[in-house]
């Protein structure tokens, strides 16, 4: 007769314990992810609901009116684009190229170590300190005055260390064996960087730069002393309405003024400004993501 074969897949106490732990771990991680998403969704929803009556195309394209109690945010929106754009134009090339040097060329000596330490410390400096530096250096010492140029340079100084740090991370993530394979066939360091290291780290580098876009767009302190003004009317609809030596308005600063400094501002106005600031950052991020996807598809990787 056939004796019933013992079921080898029967749950032992140990297996049950492992399964319970697995479920617990999963639940904890899921809860944390949820805790992350829920406030974000709530905040954005609340903002959009409050801002909805005010938001319109006209809101974007007209200057603030009647002591900022009416009208749109055109001059602040354009100002933010100028500030972020020029600061990136300065910070991204210098930051990325410096990081390439530090990661690919520099020998491990006291000088490199000091530079690396300086970069890390600079990244941790509060933005108000950068603001004072910008005021002293660009506005006064270099005589740029309070201007878009001085404010962008201040933002660039603030974002550059973080760009350097994130670019170095992205470069370090490229396996060393790729570089060795290139050197083994007689490729120079530059050829190796150009053909293998950069193509494989470009998306990581861009991610680091994108994050700094959001930071540059959101900061108030560094631009307050160096180029941003309370109110300025510019020609509506003209993308080149600001000159580099002009002072400008900026969304972050505008949001600060209308929520705290100006009495009797209509309820929806600050919310709408916040939504536009958020949307601007998302828009720039989206552009960078598209660029990243395009770069990747070109590399077939």
């Amino acid at each position, binding site marked *: 007769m056939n004796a019933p074969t013992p079921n080898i897949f029967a749950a032992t106490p140990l297996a049950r314990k492992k399964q319970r732990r697995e479920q617990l771990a999963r639940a904890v991680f899921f809860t944390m992810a949820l805790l992350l998403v829920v406030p974000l969704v709530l905040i954005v929803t609340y903002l959009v609901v409050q801002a909805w009556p005010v938001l319109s195309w006209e809101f974007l394209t007209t200057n603030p009116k009647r002591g900022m109690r009416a009208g749109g945010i055109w001059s602040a929106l354009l100002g933010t684009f100028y500030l972020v754009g020029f600061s990136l134009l300065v910070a991204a090339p210098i930051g990325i190229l410096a990081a390439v040097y530090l990661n690919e060329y520099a*020998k*491990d000596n006291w000088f490199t170590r000091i530079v690396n330490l300086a970069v890390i410390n600079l990244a941790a400096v509060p933005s108000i300190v950068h603001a004072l530096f910008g005021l002293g250096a660009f506005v006064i010492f270099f005589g740029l005055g309070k201007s878009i140029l001085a404010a962008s340079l201040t933002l660039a100084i603030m974002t550059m260390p973080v760009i350097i740090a994130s670019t170095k991370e992205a470069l370090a993530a490229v396996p060393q*064996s*790729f570089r*060795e*394979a*290139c*050197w*083994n*066939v*007689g*490729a*120079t360091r530059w*050829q190796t960087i150009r*053909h*293998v290291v950069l*193509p*494989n780290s470009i998306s990581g580098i861009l991610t680091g730069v994108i994050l700094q876009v959001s930071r540059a767009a959101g900061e108030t302190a560094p631009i307050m002393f160096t180029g941003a003004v309370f109110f300025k009317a510019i020609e509506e609809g003209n993308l080149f309405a600001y000159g580099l030596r002009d002072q400008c308005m900026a969304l972050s600063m505008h949001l600060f003024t209308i929520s705290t400094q100006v009495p009797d501002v209509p309820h929806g106005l600050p919310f709408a400004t916040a939504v536009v600031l958020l949307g601007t950052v998302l828009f720039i991020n989206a552009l960078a993501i598209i660029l990243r996807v395009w770069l990747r598809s070109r*590399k*077939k*990787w």
Partner: protein
Amino acid sequence: MIPAPHIEIEGLTVHYGAKPALRGVSFTVQRNEILAIIGPAQSGKTTLLRCLNRTLDHERHARVTGVIKVDNEDIRRTNNVYDLRRRIGMVAPLPVGLPLTIYDNVAFAPRMAGITDRAELEQRVERCLRQAALWDEVKDRLHTLGTKLSGGQQQRLTIARALSHDPEILCLDEFSIAIDPVTTMRIEDVLKELRARMTILLVTNLVQQARRLADRTAFLFNGELVELDATEKIFSETPRDRRTYDYTHGVFG
């Protein structure tokens, strides 16, 4: 008359920090010779190869003393290290497919050396892939990613890349650990053909492989060159050094 040696190594010593990796190694390699280098892990085999193409320069803590001459030229003094590396093909133990297409992987070195002519590149790519016994498997998908190939195929791709810049010296560092035996035999046949055109340094842990291919065999142990002799002598019952016998006959290790 004995012809001038192709490679001449004199008193080569390498330290990683305070730890010695090679201790005063001296030997010569004749042109078109296959020299096998055997020895247990940590005996300095890979370090030796990396000295030869000077990629050890990139290692921050390595200190090198001694003389290495290729064609009677001191390579440790040459300024043109890139030219030196183009004269040497290097195959690492684990395959490194660059994240490029199969074609670009093989065409990489010629392109870096300045060859832009399409016909010549194509011809080279085909020749090297054939020599690495890979052509038939990939000829229809040369423009797919090299990193998508299987491990064994990637290793053959690495070999094709090492041949792509027409080296006069080919260094293989345990090339067969990621390849199946049939392919290994095919590549061994290729090596036998290639020796007419180049000098081959073969680091291997497979005693039989050294026996099949090498004219002479060097036994490295603890960074020291214990013995270098004709391959039959090394693997015979009576090598000059007791430790060689112990190693090749599996008494220790």
